[in-house]
């Protein structure tokens, strides 16, 4: 397996969906290619950094803006009335 092929299989590897034969070649390549091994580590770190960054600063689910809730409830009354008149 070449580096190019390894790069192509990264997602399936992380997902655990490689078939056994491919998995074996993939692992064998990583065992002898430190460059691909490092690439995999940083590829994984990329997903982790994305998750940490998107999730850490998201407002708590409990802090629902009051004005939004009011607007939704009002919109629902409108939709209900509209539905009845249809």
């Amino acid at each position, binding site marked *: 397996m070449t580096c190019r092929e390894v790069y192509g299989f990264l997602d399936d590897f992380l997902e655990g969906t490689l078939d056994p034969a491919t998995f074996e070649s993939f692992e064998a390549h990583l065992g002898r290619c430190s460059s691909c091994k490092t*690439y995999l580590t940083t*590829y994984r770190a990329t997903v982790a950094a994305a998750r940490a960054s998107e999730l850490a600063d998201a407002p708590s689910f409990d802090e*629902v803006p009051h004005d939004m809730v009011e607007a939704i409830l009002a919109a629902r009354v409108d939709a209900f009335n509209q539905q009845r008149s249809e």
Partner: protein
Amino acid sequence: MVAVADPAQDAALLQALRSGQDEAFERLVRIHSGRMLSVCRRILRNDEEAKDAVQEAFVSAFRGLKNFEGTSQLGTWLHRIAVNASLMRLRSRKRRPEESIDDFQPTFKDDGHARIEPRDWSPSAEQLVQSRETRDFVRGCIDQLPDAYRVVLLLRDIEEHDTAEAAEILGVTDGVVKVRLHRARHALRRLLADRFGERAL
């Protein structure tokens, strides 16, 4: 994928909703709107638009309640409607010119060897991401991805939809989701690597 799920609670709430109880609808909104707002914000990156999308989602949910089969959880169903409402808004936006991410894809020599010699910056990334400044930077990098790629990355890696779910939400094939996720992750890796100290050869 969606937290707080109690089938018995869902069933009771659903019945109350179908019999048109105002209070049930309000409870539905209070339980689920926070999570819906968070995914809408993530896709739209704009607070006001995200609130509007949540409102639109609840109106569609209200209209579609009679078609809700109860095979999925209420939370999952609402989450999906919120994602769709955000995507509709995204599509109707005036397109900003998007940079191609071709240049951020890995390249190979003729013999299939990678052209870069990556350095392992994962420990520093793990540490740096503790700071808000770095997290802002990472989100900024995600925002550099064209919408088609950014949305797939968000659905798959952040919202934790599987390939088939993401494909269904976006109305594309599984293969398209896979290719976009792959390219999005490579591009993001490259953008982060520049910051975390890797030099391309």
